[in-house]
């Protein structure tokens, strides 16, 4: 029998039809789809022994307790720590996925100068030259850390200026610091004892302060209750997440916070709802009503509601002095449930260094938000772990990413208690990456090492014999054998927490009612900038995730 071309085609057609009756096409489709998920260029953590490490998160200044799951010395998962005294197991969505950040496509891994690849030696030579030619400035995004001491020491020795960029939460406390002389870092909110919280646009349920602290309070004392123990009044133009969940949402026009505060103060003073004497705002109730878009009765009603359930504290979204003045009037300063002063010595956050008129070079630490742009005509040495886009610096220097650097975590800005934690470098530093402190120590080897500063601070805490250490089992600081033992505990993820604040330790006096919507002209170009509450890198994850739901609601 002769096999023709036609026979081959018919046989092939039969084979194709037959294949459809076998697992070949379906299994191949399945396997190929899996293969596409595992392209060789997608970074995969090494497979190996799994261990759990405890540390403090360094993504922002809140310093939440984190439990890191490590596989073959690589972090593969991050979760909260339930026993942490401040965060109680809560984390922001960004922290839950923080172990992925080191693999982010925008991770910086090489020195760049004017958009071109350069070397560390060139950067060091350029900075050294700048130090010799004129005054330099070092900008720190999280003052009070051990590395901040290195920055301060360097600027002192090299005739420079140390400057700090304050977070929105710290800026909101700045007016009280101005009026009382107490440093911003020593102030905090005693939210646990408050019964009414009036938020002027502060995203209290949406990333404000330490994640978990207020959401936990809110879920325990307010969520779902018609007459809750803790009343949250949110004053905001739009229905934000905080506004949607608040006990009462007061819708106002954009940017009229100072006018509303003045209107409320006028009602409080005229109707003698407060015992504290205070300067009368110049704005009348009718004027305040006209400017805010609220009826005079609504402002009056809001004033009465605020006073119904005391202690009441007002929280501003930024350093608006008119809102801060409302707290002074309400007697919410230096009292339980209000603005309190932390016990013990706290590193001051606002440095006294004057800003030189002309700066030759400026070193910007990686903790300073990417959006920060100093108003100075200087050569910029910008440390960053991730490239935020745009041309922002002459020198772009790759800094350590998440868990790649040993650092300490001082007290979170909104906390009423002093805390101290140490974030260990759980991951080896990638080649070609170094921190600003390492950079400065290479230029001037007489600078103190971060390890030594941390060691000294642990010694100070040990000698104070105050507070407790929250590790595997919380123990009083008096029961810790030695400073070395304390440091070991902190390096293993424990957190030291000081004593609760004692009321009545400071005083704010108002000579006249402040009317500016923002902080009075800033003393430095660094503090004039208002940073965003949430990093832009997290936006997508933040919008798509439900992880930020408070614990009580997740259980329900």
């Amino acid at each position, binding site marked *: 029998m002769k096999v023709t071309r036609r*026979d081959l085609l*018919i*046989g*092939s*057609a*039969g*084979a*194709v*039809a*037959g*294949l459809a*009756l*076998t*697992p*070949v096409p379906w*299994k*191949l489709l*399945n*396997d*190929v789809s*899996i*293969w596409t*998920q*595992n392209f060789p260029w997608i970074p*995969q*953590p090494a*497979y*190996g*022994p*799994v261990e*759990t490490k405890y540390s403090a998160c360094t993504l922002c200044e809140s310093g939440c307790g984190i439990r890191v799951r490590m596989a073959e010395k690589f972090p*593969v*998962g991050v979760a909260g720590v339930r026993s942490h005294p401040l965060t109680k197991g809560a984390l922001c969505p960004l922290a839950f996925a923080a172990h992925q950040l080191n693999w982010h496509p925008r991770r910086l891994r090489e020195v760049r100068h004017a958009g071109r690849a350069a070397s560390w030696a060139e950067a060091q030579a350029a900075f050294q030259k700048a130090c010799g030619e004129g005054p330099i400035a070092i900008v720190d995004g999280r003052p009070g850390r051990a590395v901040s001491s290195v920055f301060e020491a360097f600027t002192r020795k090299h005739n420079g200026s140390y400057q700090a960029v304050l977070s929105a939460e710290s800026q909101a406390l700045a007016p009280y610091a101005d009026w009382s002389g107490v440093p911003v870092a020593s102030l905090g909110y005693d939210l646990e004892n408050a019964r009414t919280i009036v938020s002027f646009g502060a995203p209290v349920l949406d990333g404000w302060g330490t994640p978990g602290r207020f959401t936990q309070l809110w879920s325990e004392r307010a969520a779902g209750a018609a007459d809750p123990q803790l009343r949250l009044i949110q004053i905001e133009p739009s229905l934000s997440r905080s506004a949607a969940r608040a006990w009462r949402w007061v819708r106002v026009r954009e940017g009229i916070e100072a006018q509303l505060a003045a209107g409320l103060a006028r009602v409080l003073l005229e109707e003698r709802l407060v015992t504290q004497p205070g300067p009368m705002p110049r704005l009348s109730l009718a004027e305040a009503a006209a400017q805010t878009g609220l009826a005079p009765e609504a402002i009056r009603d809001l004033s009465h509601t605020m006073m119904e359930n005391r202690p009441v504290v007002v929280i501003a979204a930024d350093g608006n002095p008119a809102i801060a003045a409302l707290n002074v009037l309400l007697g919410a300063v230096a009292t339980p449930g209000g603005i309190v002063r932390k016990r013990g010595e706290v590193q001051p956050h606002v440095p006294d260094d004057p800003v030189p008129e002309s700066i030759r070079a400026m070193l910007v630490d990686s903790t300073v938000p990417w959006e920060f742009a100093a108003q100075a005509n200087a050569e910029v040495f910008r440390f960053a772990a991730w490239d935020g886009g745009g041309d922002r610096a002459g020198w772009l220097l790759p800094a350590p990413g998440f868990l790649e650097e040993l650092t300490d975590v001082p007290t979170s800005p909104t906390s009423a208690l002093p805390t101290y934690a140490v974030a260990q470098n759980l991951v080896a530093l990638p080649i070609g990456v170094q921190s600003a402190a390492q950079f400065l120590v290479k230029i001037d080897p007489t600078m103190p090492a971060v390890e030594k500063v941390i060691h000294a601070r642990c010694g100070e805490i040990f000698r104070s014999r105050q507070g407790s250490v929250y590790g595997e089992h919380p123990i009083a600081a008096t029961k810790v054998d030695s400073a070395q033992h304390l440091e070991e505990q902190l390096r293993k993820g424990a957190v030291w927490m000081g004593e609760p604040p004692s009321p009545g330790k400071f005083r704010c006096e108002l000579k006249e009612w402040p009317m500016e919507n923002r902080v009075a002209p800033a003393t430095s170009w660094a503090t004039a900038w208002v940073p965003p509450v949430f990093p832009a890198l997290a936006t997508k994850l933040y919008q798509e995730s439900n*992880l930020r739901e408070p614990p009580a609601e997740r259980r329900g």
Partner: protein
Amino acid sequence: MTGRRNLLIFGIGMGLAIVTGWTAFPRALYVRREQPLEFHHKTHSEKSGLTQCDSCHVLGSDGEFGGIPGLVTCAGCHAEKVGTSKSEATLVDGYIKPSRETPWLVYSRQPANVWFSHAIHTRRAGLACKDCHGTMGESDQPRIYEQNRISGYSRDIWGHSISRLGRAPHDGMTMSDCEDCHRRRNVEVGCLGCHK
């Protein structure tokens, strides 16, 4: 006559494809690899009295699963050679003495984008180890590890039956298997329940 001939040729082509697809394809799809050592679960349970899986595959009080025991556990008994087998010599000389972890080929290894909590499944749901791992704990010789040439996963993930018809409940660890089991037990889990 021509029509019948064409039908025959079509049938032959079809038959050949079916036979090849069901017999040769599964063999060609998987590459067979041997474990680095001959480990006998049965011998270990009989001789050392370690009858419970969690004697070696430790599940910590905090829910952390230890997985395959590390070299330290093996060295507890095998610091020196116990017996004269080739595997014993490899274990002691090749891994324990130079402190090199044994590169076991894990039959049930899941992709990196999945996390699985043994604690939740055994402690909360009350599943037995064999519900997913079958009779692995009673094996008296190591099975050949079959690795999918395309996906790189173990054959145990898809299951030994290429058609997945008539397979035992523990034969297969795909996402569909997890979903089926959850559906049967009326346990709902979202994407982030398993996927990182």
